């Protein structure tokens, strides 16, 4: 019975962690202030 509780706990924590990380996602940031280029840049 204690083994079952331990296994269930591990499983629940794994699901909770993955759901939390994916729900947080990544920040979108802001549009770059750099222009659309009309000159040839000297380097990348």
């Amino acid at each position, binding site marked *: 019975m204690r083994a079952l509780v*331990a296994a269930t706990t591990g499983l629940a924590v794994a*699901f909770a962690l993955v759901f939390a990380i994916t729900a947080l996602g990544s920040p979108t940031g802001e549009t770059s202030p750099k222009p*659309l280029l*009309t000159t040839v840049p000297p380097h990348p």
Partner: protein
Amino acid sequence: MRRKTSLVLLALAVFFAALSPLLRWYAFPRLAKIPANEYQHMVLEARNATLLDYGTMTAKKVPKVTIVQTLKGNVEASEKIERTAGRDVVVWDGLSYVQGPDGKMVSKVPERYIFDAHTQEPVHAKGEMVDGDPVKREGLEFKWPFLTEKRDYEYFDAQARVTAPIHYKGTQDFRGVEVYYFEQTIPWTRVPFPKTMPVKGITPETVAETGTTRWYTTVRKFWVEPVTGAPVYGEEIHKEELRGGTLLGGREKVTAFAGHVKMREDYIRSTVDLVRSNRTAVLLMTSYLPWGFLALGVLLLSLSLYLEARGRRPGEPEPGRSPAPEPVTA
């Protein structure tokens, strides 16, 4: 104490074993995406190209034609579209700026490309365009999906505004990176004149009045790193002609541009470096971590079972239980 340790190890074993498939098949498709605020530029060159001189309306050999391509993620526009689309969307405002050997503008074509941040499938929304003309893209443009497959894809051609297959032609090694080589041929197709022409006073409307039409064909080649879906190199064998009408002075056709367009060397190096580092990040989620967690889970489970087995060795009293009392005799 040994029993408690084996239970903790069991919980950890299940945790890591469960994390392995969850990371690969649940988290990865949701976390791997093109950032909405991406900004990148690319320089391509066509050496010894043929270019139309609009002053004399004759084709001339020129040492170099340069194409500067900028892609800029428009975060505000993507957030606006996401509200109705209900998924992560990227809006790329792009500009293809073509410059002649004298540094003067040959053409500039803006476009707006809207696509799903995870799958790179096009998303149709207001504002999607090429050179100001509304379009409804099908297929890919610029980038392949993460975990690109060895198969043909549909690719959108911005010049002709058509979608056509881009064929998988094999796996190659490009500067130490395994890449899939794709090729698309667009046959001679009548295409619109760019809205911005290289000579002042000439507009697509004034050219249309002369009856002259613009035709284009290209062989598009991409070397795509399959894990990230990012092209590490690209080439185009590109030809444009003006045909018919009074503008050509009785000639049937004249070459407007012909050249073998290739990425500039410094951009190839920087793209390969960028793709290599992004590849590692994607592999971390699709391979390194899932397999690592699975192995760790198995190891912890073995350790847990070992401790449990040792705790139950025959002949030894079970932990926490006192030996049976001796019978008392009078």
